[in-house]
């Protein structure tokens, strides 16, 4: 990949770890827009992102990877549009502990379909330890049925090396496509 800065978008349902992922990767304190949650989110956590998260990561070759997190709730889909503008690829985080992770994945793949088609995506499955089901297998099956193959990892969105793996994989996928 040429030595140009890149912009990566993090998407996925509320509570899947988008803000955490960006926080643990970013070289700077994350620009966050968390407010008190009043919707169903409240059952899981106190606050929720309503506009965006922003941080950046400098790679060894000196280029910057700008990291943008999107709000999870679909009422904020206008922010998805705004934030993907000029983006290089998508990290989709899926929460394994939600009732229907496969439906969540398909929803966001549909919502970001055009962006993913033009760029690329990787999927991280978070909170796997809180689910007794084989979510990895379930999501793989769902992807196969959809006819879309994407790199997929089980991750802890609070762990540097896990999130780094997602971003490095995405960058590798993107540079292979060029």
């Amino acid at each position, binding site marked *: 990949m040429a030595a140009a800065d890149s912009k990566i978008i993090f998407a996925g349902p509320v509570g899947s770890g988008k803000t955490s992922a960006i926080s643990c990767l970013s070289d700077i304190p994350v620009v966050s*827009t*968390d407010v*008190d949650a*009043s*919707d169903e989110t409240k059952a899981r956590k106190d606050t929720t992102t*309503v*506009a965006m998260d922003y941080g950046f990561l400098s790679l060894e070759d000196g280029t910057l990877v700008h990291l943008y997190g999107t709000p999870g*709730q679909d*009422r904020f889909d206008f922010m998805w549009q705004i934030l993907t503008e000029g983006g290089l690829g998508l990290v989709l985080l899926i929460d394994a502990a939600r009732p229907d992770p496969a439906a969540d994945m398909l929803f966001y793949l549909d919502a970001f379909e055009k962006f993913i088609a033009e760029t690329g995506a990787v999927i991280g499955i978070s909170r796997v330890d809180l689910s007794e089901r084989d979510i990895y297998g379930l999501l793989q099956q769902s992807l196969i049925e959809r006819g879309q193959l994407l790199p997929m990892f089980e991750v802890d969105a609070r762990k540097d090396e896990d999130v780094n793996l997602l971003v490095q994989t995405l960058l590798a996928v993107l540079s292979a496509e060029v």
Partner: protein
Amino acid sequence: MDLVDEIIKKVTDASGEGGSDSQADSLDTILGALLDDADDILGALVTTADGLPKAQRLPGDLDPRRFSAMSSALLALSTTMAREAGKGETMNVLIEGKEGNTYVMHAGNNLVLTVFTKIKPNLGLTLAQARRAADKVVLFAREKAKGM
């Protein structure tokens, strides 16, 4: 800032409310009164800080759900920006459009008031009227919290 405060005071005094009226108006009444009193204000919306509609008086076919989400996103991002730039607490966000203004302001910690004006409104007056309505919303929320 002083001018705005002065206008707020004048508008508040001129409204001639019956002394210390402790009974908080309902959100719908507050918005209705705002639109009745303020000639330049065409629409108003109260939302939660995380973007869910609570009450609205919107013109035309504006979707309250969509504008609620946008209001919270705008205010949250503006608040973050002003804070990080050392500009302190955000009072309101002011969008000047060629066809009218939009104000988004905090109404306490958990509610947001958004107001749409007509083309070329009286800036100071409409801001003051909106701020006064926001203060009423705060009062309403406080009364409601007490009642719970």
